[in-house]
């Protein structure tokens, strides 16, 4: 499984930067909306012509939600690569190395099952949303691409976990 290590890390990193871009976009979009909304208020109060064309950005709420889902989902794989998820290691670290490897293999397997299911179900759910033509209320943006995004991002986590598994499994059988 070693051959998967490089591509999975590479993919995780690319997705990570997409997630980062999502956060920056969320910030910029929300700030632009606040400023434009402020302009509207000023125009109504003081009738300054400069602000007459200011309008809040329609659908900011929806866009921020969608960007939020990208920001989290696409960061999952790289956060796993960097062991960035909170875990309680204090008890496991007391066991001998072999036992630690056994526990790690089992828990990685559980994680893998979870993300395989999540990836599969997200794809099904997205297909369902696509068929039903569900869209956001203001901008009429379809939901399904973002759910597919979660499915894809979860598949990337599976790759990372698979590589982890390939590393801890040999430790179990080491003589």
């Amino acid at each position, binding site marked *: 499984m070693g051959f998967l290590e490089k591509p999975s890390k590479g993919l995780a990193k690319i997705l*990570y930067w997409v*997630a*980062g871009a999502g*956060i*920056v976009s*969320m*910030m*910029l979009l*929300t*700030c632009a*909306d*606040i400023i434009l909304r402020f302009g509207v208020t000023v125009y109504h109060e003081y009738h300054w012509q400069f602000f007459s064309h200011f309008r809040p950005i329609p659908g900011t*709420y929806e866009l*921020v*939600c*969608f*960007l*939020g*889902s990208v*920001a*989290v*989902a696409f*960061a*999952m794989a*790289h*956060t*796993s690569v*960097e062991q*960035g*998820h*909170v*875990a*309680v*290691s*204090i*008890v*496991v*670290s007391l066991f001998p190395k072999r036992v630690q490897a056994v*526990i*790690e293999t*089992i*828990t990685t397997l*559980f*994680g893998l*099952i*979870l993300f395989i*299911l*999540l990836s599969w*179900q*997200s794809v*099904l*759910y997205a297909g369902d949303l696509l068929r039903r033509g569900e869209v956001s209320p203001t901008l009429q943006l379809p*939901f399904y691409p*973002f*759910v597919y995004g*979660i499915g894809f991002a979860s598949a990337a986590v599976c790759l990372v976990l698979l590589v982890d598994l390939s590393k801890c499994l040999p430790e179990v059988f080491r003589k």
Partner: protein
Amino acid sequence: MSVTTIGIIGLIVLVILLFSNMPVGFVMGFLGFLGFSYVVNLHAGLCLLARDVFEVFSSYGLTVIPLFVFMGQIAFYSGISRRLYDSAYVLVGSRRGGLAMATVAACAGFSAISGSTNATAATMGTVTLPEMKRYKYDMSLATGTVAAAGSLGILIPPSVIFIVYGILTEQSIGKLFAAGILPGILLSILFLLTIYLRVLKNPSLAPAGPKTTLKEKIKSFMGIIETLILFALVMGGIFFGIFTPTEAAAAGAFFTILMAVIRRQLTWPSFVQSLADTTRISCMVMVIVTGAVVFGHFMAVTRLPYDLATWVSGLPLPNWAIMSVVILVYLFGGCFMDALAMIMLTIPIFFPVSQALGYDPIWFGVVIVLITEMGVITPPVGVNVYVVSGVAKDVPLEDIFRGVLPMLAALLVCNILLLIFPQIALFLPGLMR
């Protein structure tokens, strides 16, 4: 087997798996899915998984987390923490124990822009520990101070814990933020008092620093102005209902970047680094929250939390005794677990109990945040202590824990005061529109 029994088994397996070094969010998601599928059916469980994940990831309320984390990271990389400490240092550094007091003040200040204990402890540790070492402070006192005062990060708003607590229990995040301010100030004062008393008893712990002139003092005030402006913008905006918390966080992050760029204190590499940290931290938080939501749904179908709440509220015990047991559970759990994970795990179970006992949900939020603050500095898993020990590699872990002990007493006093006078937390939220 009754559904309640399944719920109890689920909880026991959860506790076992939590100690297996499996990521906390994964454990809760996995068991939540298994349990829900067992109680309802497999198809429902599979559907629940995809739906819960999409709903949490795209929740508007939770988008506030990456934005506040971003604000704190930019503040760190652009040196706001350094300037805060410098100001506090010039103001009180010449007194005995002054540098440690300055550390508490700077931590409180940094907490006003950062929402996590680890970030506050790590940030202030790198800034303040070398200084205290230079002035021959007892390193146990110095490291203990940073670890304890760093825990203010989750009490003084913005606070990641208040955000997720607010969302899971459907409380106003603005009110929770407001509720954290006075207890945060009270706790800071208690920390200062603890240092003062320790140094009074043993002056060699913390020798006096160099004297500063009035001019320097006035000049140093500039260092806290930006933090004050940021805090006023963010909290003022939420408090007066001008911004939603997400908008306040976005404006705060943007303003922090703007100020750092104007002061030429933010380079491209440090911007990229702060974004990378933000992405990782937010993902970590959101994965835990998502896991907790899935697990919470499993708990809900077993009706365990409600049964427990009904049972507990029917016990022939006074409310404060039940509350004390709840607090003990948090304290004990907090010793082993990260603050956020601990709160996420227990809210589905203890929140209904606190409601059945008739406690104010906002007040309850502040109380459990205060208790988990104790958790992050108590052995064996005092996360903050490990963070500080990562910064001060030459100080043995036992010394840091020893330095933390007197601060724990301050936290305990603060907690007791809050139990006796709930108004300390509830006064400010009561003023909100």
